[in-house]
């Protein structure tokens, strides 16, 4: 079964510092890949997604992610973090083949704290 691993449960960075959140997936073929952000009391918001093509994907709020097939990774990055980026971040995958190409499988999330 496919799975998603986010190795870091909690990350703290200073405002203005760069950020990288890690995501690894376990699946035979290349899945569709997503990053969502969840702020307290808010629904999950899609930051970016990768289906195919250019392996560097640009998203909203200044985020980007890079798909690396050899490492089965899809890490999220931001060059300069803002205090408003404090939230929980979820990596998710979809199996594009078979009959379940709608079912998101999520990692356990990484909680981001931003220090002033």
């Amino acid at each position: 079964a496919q799975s998603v691993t986010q190795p870091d449960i909690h990350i703290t960075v200073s405002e203005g510092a760069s950020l990288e959140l890690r995501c690894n997936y376990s699946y035979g073929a290349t899945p569709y890949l997503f990053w969502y952000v969840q702020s307290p009391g808010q629904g999950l918001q899609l930051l970016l997604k990768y289906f195919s093509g250019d392996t560097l994907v640009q998203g909203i709020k200044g985020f980007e992610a890079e798909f690396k097939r050899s490492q089965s990774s899809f890490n999220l990055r931001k060059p300069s973090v803002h205090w408003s980026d404090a939230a929980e971040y979820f990596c998710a995958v979809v199996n594009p083949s078979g009959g379940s190409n709608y079912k998101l499988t999520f990692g356990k999330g990484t909680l981001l704290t931003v220090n002033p």
Partner: protein
Amino acid sequence: GAGVSQTPSNKVTEKGKYVELRCDPISGHTALYWYRQSLGQGPEFLIYFQGTGAADDSGLPNDRFFAVRPEGSVSTLKIQRTERGDSAVYLCASSATAQETQYFGPGTRLLVL
């Protein structure tokens, strides 16, 4: 336009009671999904509707859980004989079609005492 809305935002109930959780998807979205998010976990898939029919209910944990979408718009997740382990945030999402971006509601936080 309006996003996905869910009511109630919070629900406290006693063990053994019946609860209903409501989801209003984005207008015109044919696909609707329910996920459950337990404390410290990512959301887990429960059920997917295409129109009025449940196309995939493989994530429902047992037969105490049931969901309907009678007119292809609003959906209700029903939980019978609630147990303390049912306590979680129940998230609803919708998408224009099954392969398109899923937009999530704010969730209903269910606490079973």
